[in-house]
């Protein structure tokens, strides 16, 4: 179910990394099933999915630590994996940041960063190392050892170490999962800035969609080894290609309805217009994805729904509104609209692109 990237945006660039039909199994267990993806020069991609979906295995296949049973991987138009070829990881020029950082405990920070700078003059190595230390803002700890650093510092050193040899592609395996939550967000933006500054393409693996959205230009949603959708974060949120993607990404509810005409659906919230999935006729039961931001609070509206639950989130309220006994919708309001549970809330629909699935 791969999704074509929007061609017009990328006419000038050629795909840097290309995966065709990648499959991999451990014994009888199929971990990756026919995955395809393309990543362009300078882009940051993200493999998103719940644990066990195959995202880390896919990343390790790109790095060369796992050998797919089937399919091709090419980097800069060079085949690095197919039926005959399996370039060993050390010859792929792919950098990697590991979940546990994997800093070498017996080497200083400087030595760690310089480790991948083989066959270069001492001067150039020193120059590159100080350049990177500057970039990650840790110039003063060059001679310390990994165990003397905080988690966030270790993470930045791991990044600098992977970037040092200027790899064609940088892979990051759940890079923030061992850090505490407040640090994560701050680092995600910082890491994105550093990668973009170096002009290196990257692929990140995460199970946290906020992290994916913060970091990536393209997000691939994986489920049970299959690539559900490879798309921009915007499209993944607003134009999910499947019910699984619609449910996994963001919040929202599936509102039932019935097809009226070629482009309209009758629901409990009125008539909604949109492109129907194939094979829909009049009266075909369908479901429409309603995001909380598709519903706008308006006290003057004629639609008044009962509030059954509310969550205070600081800047906003998330209300659960009852349509009838079987269905409800979510609505976000600025947090000064403090309505009580069981009271009525006036709303209106503001759906720019409706996502419709056959029931």
């Amino acid at each position, binding site marked *: 179910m791969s999704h074509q990237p929007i061609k017009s945006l990328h006419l000038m660039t050629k795909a840097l990394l290309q995966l065709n039909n990648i499959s991999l199994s451990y014994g009888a267990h199929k971990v990756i099933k026919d995955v395809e993806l393309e990543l362009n020069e300078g882009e940051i991609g993200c493999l998103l999915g719940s644990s066990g979906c195959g995202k880390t295995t896919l990343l*390790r296949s790109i*790095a*060369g*630590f796992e050998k797919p049973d089937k399919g091709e991987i090419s980097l800069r138009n060079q085949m690095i994996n197919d039926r005959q070829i399996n370039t*060993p*990881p*050390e*010859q*792929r*020029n*792919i*950098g*990697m940041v*590991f*979940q*546990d*950082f*994997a800093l*070498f*405990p*017996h080497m200083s920070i400087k030595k760690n960063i310089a*480790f*991948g700078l*083989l066959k270069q003059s001492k001067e150039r190595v020193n120059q590159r190392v100080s350049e990177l230390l500057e970039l990650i803002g840790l110039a003063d700890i060059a001679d310390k050892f990994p165990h003397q650093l905080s988690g966030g510092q270790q993470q930045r050193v791991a990044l600098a*170490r*992977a970037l040092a*040899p200027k790899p064609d592609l940088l*892979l990051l395996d759940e890079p923030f999962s061992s850090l505490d939550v407040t640090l994560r967000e701050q680092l995600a933006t910082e890491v994105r800035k550093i990668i973009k500054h170096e002009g290196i393409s990257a692929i990140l693996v995460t199970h946290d969609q906020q992290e994916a959205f913060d970091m990536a230009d393209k997000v691939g949603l994986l489920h049970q080894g299959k690539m559900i959708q490879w798309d921009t974060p915007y499209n993944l949120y607003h134009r999910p290609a499947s019910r699984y993607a619609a449910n996994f990404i963001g919040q929202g509810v599936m509102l039932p309805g019935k097809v009226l005409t070629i482009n309209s659906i009758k629901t409990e919230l009125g008539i909604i217009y949109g492109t129907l999935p194939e094979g829909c006729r009049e009266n075909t039961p369908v479901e429409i994805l309603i995001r909380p931001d598709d519903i706008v609070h308006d006290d003057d509206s004629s639609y008044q729904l009962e509030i059954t639950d509310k969550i205070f989130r600081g800047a906003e309220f998330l209300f659960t509104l009852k349509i009838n006994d079987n269905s409800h919708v979510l609505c976000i309001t600025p947090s000064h609209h403090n309505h009580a549970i069981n009271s009525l809330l006036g709303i209106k629909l503001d759906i720019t692109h409706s996502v419709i699935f056959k029931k």
Partner: protein
Amino acid sequence: MTDRWQLGILTITLLFAVPVITVFSFVFQGPSDVWNHLVDTVLSDYIVNSLLLMLGVSLGTLSIGITTAWLTSLCEFPGRKIFQWALLLPLAMPAYIIAYTYTGMLDFSGPVQTLIRETFGWGARDYWFPEVRSIGGAMMMLSLVLYPYVYLLTRAAFLEQSSVTLEASRSLGMGPWKSFFAIALPMARPAIVTGLSLALMETLADFGTVEYFGVTTFTTGIFRTWFGLGDASAASQLASILLLFVFVLIVIERFSRRQARYHQHIGHQAHAKRIQLTFKKGWLAFITCLIPLLLGFGLPFAQLSVWTIETAEQMINSDFYTLVFHSLSLAIVTAILALILALFMSYGQRLKNSPVIHLMVRIASMGYAIPGTVIAIGIVIPFAWLDNTVDDWTRSQFDFSTGLLLSGTLFALVFSYLVRFLAVSTGSVESSLGKIKPSMDDAARSMGYKPIQVLQKIHIPIMRTTLLTAVLLVFVDILKELPATLLLRPFNFNTLAVRAYELAADERLADASSAAIMIVLTGIIPVILLSLSITRNFYEPSANQEPSSND
């Protein structure tokens, strides 16, 4: 790349399996006259004596090992902190050396009997004194130096038990002593059995003690059949029966190690609080711990020291220095070789994580359980065959005799040590390698390093302390080794162990002490290493780090 590792591991494993395969291959050969003779006369003695020895050593090591482990890990009494490491000292004392020493101390002209006669004014026939050179004596000697195996593993098991389990038992109405018997002891059982099976492997492998005490067991039988009767086939058949005993022990040991994983380690919780013993009980505990330490190390060491000083003038000469140099250099070179092989095997195993490779590494490190006598026979036979074949060929082709290329050379001896002790270094390397996260390998690979470079740049520097320990442990084991050295050494090549054996066999017990004390002193090195790890409360039951083999 990885295929080369695989091929290497396969080759090493096959080579290392040669001795065992050789020995077993004779099972399928028809019985020789000598074999029939053995079956009719001495085979039953060998079996009965070996079983009796194992029984006696089990009783001895279990009673000493468990009691001292229990006292030092769960009770508080005067001297506990010193005892907890000092109780390991008998490990430094090879059984054959303690046997010579006690014989010298307890025989008719020894200090003990002389003192008795002088005190009571008795003549030679006025009193009965137990004969140390007997099967009972052998049981005592072996128990005194082998109990640390049981002590070490049992103590670790007791310490790993969380206090919560014992507290749960207490809260259910059991007293502290009842809880010990109902909870702590059964939980430690796999560890106890592992320790015991290691001690029994050493018992079966022992040659020096039983030979000196005139107890006929498999090892002495193999030696006699080989040297005395010159029948390689019958000696191998004896060795196969001995190996069957050994394999039973290996299976028990492997099984209990696996069990131990379920029995221990339920998270990292606080250790059980030690029971503070009352004054009287405390001193009783003190004496209980002191006795095995004194008998297994203190007294024999003191006696050896006295003898060494008495005989120094005639024994410590240039010959002695040559002997020390031979022994030490042979041991250190072989230990380094063992380390290189262990690194190759363990790292290959890490690269190529397949069940077949795991099995091969296990097979190659089986030697720790196989008696030196058996390994020696399993090496002499194929090497002699190879030498003869090469010699015949060169003679027929070039009219030139190569003589003996392999057998009777240092090469054969080094090979036997490697087969016997590879497990010691593999064990250390494997457990240390296991502590390095696999992401380290991946990180270095992704930065452009080949697997062998990763080993050089990452693993070896990180593991350097362990690697040094591994070399030391093998070094000491080789220094102590007696039966294989005796059978395989080149003509006129002596080691400290062989010299001590020869002098003792000539009843020159005091003269043997300078060589013996050198062995004991080096044997203390691994004890110190183990003690350090014990006081740091750091011990891995998975590692085959138990040093020493008291052949």
